[in-house]
């Protein structure tokens, strides 16, 4: 089944620091009946104070401090520097300054035995774990995280393993800030994945949804607009799907030609909320906001305001 949700404030940077984390927690918790295998969010529009924030999971059998030391060295070897490391049990939130190629950085971190990347972003990070939204919040305190937009997922595993690695959102290696949540099953993902692998892309999981993230990111990197990339995916992806993509500047959704998976939208002048079910949106929107239900073969995008991003550096 799975449930997806996303929220975006159109007011953008000028009034950033909306309670996106808190609202995602409430939305995802109200959809916990759609899957409790794992819960994950991506909160975008944050100000980190560093070039990037990397979310890393460390394997316990390698020894956490040993793995972190390895990551530190890997970053340093490429001329970058680690500014801070926040500790969330098996998870680390690493702020670093780095100006080189992100593919190299990702590969270098992934070459450290016992390290796995959940996301790399300039202004967003993926937080995901097993259990429901409140359990996730207890471990990662994401309800206190503010931003301009974000997306989330509750998972009922159908296509791959029940573990943290295979839970959503999926980050698109090696593109910063691009993440996907997906409700459905892709039937041609092996084929797509092989094509991407031949072109040098690296996949971290066996999950079908990771392919969507890479597919969209690849299009965006070739200067396609998000709306066009989503539009093309309707024909290139085979199976049932409703998915939402988050980039540094907005969100977009695509729905398959069979209209097989549910999706509703509530939109006001200031914000837009999308989710698998209205029950999630009524937690944050008043009763008089009209519901929109996209039909089959449909694509929609929303942008935070296009005001220039002001980079705040602490060091």
């Amino acid at each position, binding site marked *: 089944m799975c449930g997806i949700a996303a929220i975006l404030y159109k007011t953008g940077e000028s009034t950033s620091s909306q309670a996106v984390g808190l609202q995602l927690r409430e939305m995802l918790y109200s959809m916990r*009946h759609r899957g409790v295998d794992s819960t994950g969010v991506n909160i975008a529009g944050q100000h980190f104070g560093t070039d990037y924030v990397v979310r890393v999971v460390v394997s316990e059998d390698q020894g956490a401090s040993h793995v972190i030391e390895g990551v530190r060295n890997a970053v340093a070897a490429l001329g970058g520097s680690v500014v801070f490391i926040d500790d969330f049990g098996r998870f680390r939130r690493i702020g670093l300054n780095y100006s080189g190629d992100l593919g190299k950085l990702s590969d270098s971190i992934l070459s450290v035995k016992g390290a796995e990347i959940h996301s790399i972003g300039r202004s967003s990070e993926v937080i995901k774990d097993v259990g429901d939204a409140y359990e996730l919040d207890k471990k990662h305190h994401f309800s206190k995280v503010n931003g301009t937009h974000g997306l989330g997922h509750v998972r009922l595993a159908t296509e791959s393993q029940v573990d943290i690695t295979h839970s959503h959102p999926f980050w698109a290696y090696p593109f910063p800030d691009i993440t996907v949540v997906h409700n459905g099953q892709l039937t041609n993902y092996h084929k797509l994945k092989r094509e991407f692998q031949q072109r040098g892309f690296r996949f971290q999981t066996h999950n079908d949804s990771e392919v969507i993230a890479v597919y969209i990111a690849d299009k965006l990197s070739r200067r396609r607009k998000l709306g066009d990339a989503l539009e093309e995916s309707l024909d290139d992806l085979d199976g049932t799907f409703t998915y939402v993509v988050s980039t540094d500047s907005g969100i977009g959704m695509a729905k398959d030609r*069979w*209209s097989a998976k*549910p999706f*509703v939208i509530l939109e006001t002048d200031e914000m837009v909320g999308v989710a698998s*079910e*209205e*029950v999630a*949106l*009524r*937690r944050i929107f008043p*009763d008089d906001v*009209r*519901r929109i*239900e996209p*039909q*089959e073969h449909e694509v929609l995008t929303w942008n935070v305001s296009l005001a220039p991003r002001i980079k705040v550096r602490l060091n």
Partner: protein
Amino acid sequence: MTERLAGNVPKALSAPVSQGYSIDARKLTTRLLNASIKSGVSKGRYITILNPDARHNLAVGIVKRCSLSFAGSVGYYCCAFCDGISATIEGNSGWGLGDNLMSGSIVIREDAGASVGASMRGGQILVWGNAGARAGISMKGGTLVIAGNSGFLTGFMMQRGRIIVMGGVGDAAGDSMYEGIVYVGGEIGSLGVDAKTESATRSEEVELRAFLKALKFRDDILPRRFRKIVSAKRLYQYDSLEPLERERLVI
């Protein structure tokens, strides 16, 4: 569409709140809420359900004559497996509203999600807004009226009964229908497999208009004329012919 029609919702079909009592859904689990609806229903009361918050499975399995009113949106399978109810929903619904309805009436003031009236066998469902995909899927009787537009695969695998769409229908309308009729006042996106259009006969038009008038639809918002989608019944018999062989056959 809904805004235009909102003032026109028939009073007779909404539950007279003053004679009954209300239940606040927020204070109850779905199981307890359904139990309290049932116990109120067995005493013959009119019940208003406050704060339904688009929750699922509300008022399922009620087989008594009763009046219910939902003061907001409901989730999946609202009023499923019911017989004899008269329900009004003041907001939207999720998937499968009135699933397997045997008799009675359900009125929804805004939009219905996908599969409204799935497998319904009798009674009447009236949607004042738009309906999602697969409206009236596998319908086996009764009448489904949609005042706005209806989505993809309207009347999919319909077996009996009728669907009246005053607006347009989406693609693949009437796909794999066996029997039954889909009346369409507006545009037809495209026809589904084994579906064909016919124009409604004069007596059908007269009957349809009388029926819609009885539901308090104003004359000026009724479509000028209705087209109907029925089964072409070419799928009733299967054969093992190749497409080329079938083309050569004279039927």
